[in-house]
């Protein structure tokens, strides 16, 4: 119960940080670093998809509720990311090391970038604008900055998540049934 409670608090905190801190601080970039997505990907790399999917769903519901969006969009994105990165880590990166967090940070940024392109396509269809116009207007400023900040934030977030998970393992060790 306690690890679950701490993880809920962890995700609540990260969602607030993304909505009220990161999105304000990095508003001038193409898109701010996706913190909740980063936490889901980190959890997926550390513990696998079979563990991280429920936190992807929870994080998505939390994030959508906070932004008054339709529930389900972020959960869909997070579950997909969790599966992709969980499988990638298991297939290609057995014996995971911290330095590889940068590689996954780049991967996560590309994932978010592609996700936003899908949104843009939908938006351009909806508003009857040319996709190229929408694409250019959205990504004409701060794309490289967004890339750098996202990779850096993911690196920090991965360290934080792995430290947090090690801390939570203490509770598992001292469970009475073990």
């Amino acid at each position: 119960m306690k690890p679950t409670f701490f993880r809920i608090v962890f995700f609540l905190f990260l969602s607030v940080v993304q909505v009220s801190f990161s999105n304000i601080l990095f508003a001038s970039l193409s898109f701010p670093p996706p913190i909740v997505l980063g936490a889901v990907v980190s959890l997926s790399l550390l513990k696998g998809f079979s563990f991280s999917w429920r936190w992807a769903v929870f994080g998505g519901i939390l994030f959508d509720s906070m932004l008054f969006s339709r529930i389900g969009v972020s959960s869909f994105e997070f579950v997909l990311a969790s599966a992709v990165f969980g499988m990638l880590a298991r297939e290609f990166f057995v014996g995971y090391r911290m330095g590889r967090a940068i590689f996954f940070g780049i991967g996560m940024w590309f994932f978010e970038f592609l996700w936003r392109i899908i949104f843009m396509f939908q938006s351009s269809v909806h508003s009857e604008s040319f996709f190229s116009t929408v694409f250019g207007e959205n990504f004409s400023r701060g794309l490289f900055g967004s890339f750098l900040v996202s990779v850096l934030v993911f690196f920090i977030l991965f360290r934080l998540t792995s430290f947090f998970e090690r801390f939570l393992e203490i509770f598992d060790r001292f469970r009475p049934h073990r």
Partner: protein
Amino acid sequence: MIGWVGGEDADPRLESIFVSLSNVSMFRFFWKNKFGKLFLLLAGCAVVFAWNPSFVSFTLRTVIGTVLAPLHNVVGFFGYHTNQTKVFFLSVGQLKHENERLLAETIDLKARVAALSDIARENEILREDRGLLSRDRLDFKAAEVIGRDSVSSGGAILIGAGETSGIRKGMAVVVGNGVLIGRVFEVAPFSSRVLLVSDSESAINAVAGSEEARGIVRGEYGLGLVLDMVIQTDTLREGDEVITSGLGGDVPRGLFIGTATSVESSNDRLFQRATLVSPVRFDRLRFVSVVLDAKL
């Protein structure tokens, strides 16, 4: 198994139970498989998105918004001040030129304010003579920006005031003494979502210049504003000031939106359109006011 309970004399209730059981076992079969699980989860998310249960989403927003409101305020405060510090360091080199430009603009504005206050006095006297209510009677509710949505096409902000402060969906949101920045899009008890005028989904009825050219102000995916759908017979010039027309919704007339630049014809030559320059930086908003009641 279904075939076993089927037949002419089979009990339909029993049959439905077996069908459900077989569905459960099919679900388990999928769930045990890695890709099956992924498929089920994604399908579940898609179903929830399509279904969009308003009761569930409203309850979640209310609970999460109420519990996390203080944390949003604190984190938002740090976010804003960190952003200000970042902006300060990045713009040190431009400060001298900016200062000179603002000084020149201040002198110009002082002259305009003096002229306008004379006209305003005259207008008040005329309105009194005709028995009309005074125009500048806007009832504001100040609110702090506690968050920002970066996913929407152009921007939406979260403000720390909601239903309990008398805010309703559709109300105009301004900064300063009446520069329109958006409209309230969703309301929770202690917070609201404001769709900025720079969002591509935003459309505000507006008039431009002394000739009152009518059109629609739309957002350009967070980068700027456009006055669109102005008919060719209306006079639209560069430098015209664009204000809200007061038509439709809770947006009162006379809120400043921006100044028109680069007027051109639309692709089909039916309408004119102009790019607008807003005096507001939408990525640096801190305090806003919601127009609660416009007594016009």
